[in-house]
């Protein structure tokens, strides 16, 4: 019986937890979309592998409220990100900006792609040259060459 009571209580509390994070009132519905987008892309500074949307930590709650406030004040997404970046450092952006610290990170996929293409290119051309032993044709010994000429002549006679 106590177990059941605990289960029911847990369920009720779980619902409350969802409700407390889900209900955010906006003066304009277009702000809600931008809010959802922002809290997905901003990182919780305390619980480092979660974004603001996923995290239940107090600091995330505060920052969600702050994002909400700034949206209502009419700040652009970029301004809000800069606002948080100037306080919590670039760490807070899950999508880091391109700068001298991050260009390698951003360039890496392109570099790896080009490297992969280069490897494929090398593999393809190396194989096709070894399948057709052109180089060896060039280096026929004179004996072989004579035999070949003879065979070709015989073939013409037939």
């Amino acid at each position, binding site marked *: 019986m106590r177990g059941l009571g605990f289960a029911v209580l847990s369920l009720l509390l779980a619902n409350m937890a969802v409700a407390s994070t889900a209900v955010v009132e906006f003066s304009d519905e277009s702000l809600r979309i931008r809010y959802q987008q922002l809290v997905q892309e901003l990182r919780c*500074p*305390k619980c*480092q592998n979660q974004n603001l949307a996923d995290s239940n930590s*107090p*600091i995330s709650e*505060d*920052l969600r409220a*702050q994002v909400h406030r700034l949206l209502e004040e009419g700040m652009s997404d970029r301004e809000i990100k800069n606002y948080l*970046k*100037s*306080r*919590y*450092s*670039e*760490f807070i952006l899950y999508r880091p900006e391109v700068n001298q610290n991050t260009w390698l990170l951003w360039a890496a996929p392109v570099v790896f792609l080009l490297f992969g293409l280069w490897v494929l290119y090398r593999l393809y051309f190396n194989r096709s040259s070894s399948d057709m032993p052109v180089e060896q044709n060039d280096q026929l010994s004179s004996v072989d060459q004579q035999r070949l000429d003879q065979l070709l002549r015989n073939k013409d006679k037939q």
Partner: protein
Amino acid sequence: MNRLALFIPLALFAALSVVLLLGLDKDPQELPSALVGEPFPEFFLPRLEGDQAIVSREDFRGQVLLVNVWATWCFACRIEHQKLNSLAEQGVVIVGLNYKDQRAEAKLWLYERGNPYQFNIFDAEGSLGIDLGVYGAPETYLVDGDGIIRHRRVGVVDDRIWDAEFKALYQELTGVSQ
């Protein structure tokens, strides 16, 4: 030449291993500070001590001081408090930032454990906390006479951290050895 090229993957692997090995020593909880070298953010907040007076940056009065973010719900702050008391005894000016706390509990804390603070900023909403980029108490900021943040420590300041991170800079800024 072709033979040497076979060692390229091994070399890349070795380089990556070294980078990752160096990374092991880093504390992932330690964030780069956005505010070091920047002025302490402006604020207008009540004092914890309960009078109606509002405190602001002006109350730092051009002194070299520590701003210590603390709260009664913060367990590590208990450990840190002894060190703050002894620093205050040595004449270090410390301003408290009581962060998202209950006024009565915070006052009781200072009554029981001693008060190392010149005064306490009472930031119940955590608004100055957001401006400072606070993400966990305790945090300690070293502010110079021009109101510029010169160093920030997230986590407990103990003897070791004080000697390693604060002492030299503090002495340089104040021109006093202690």
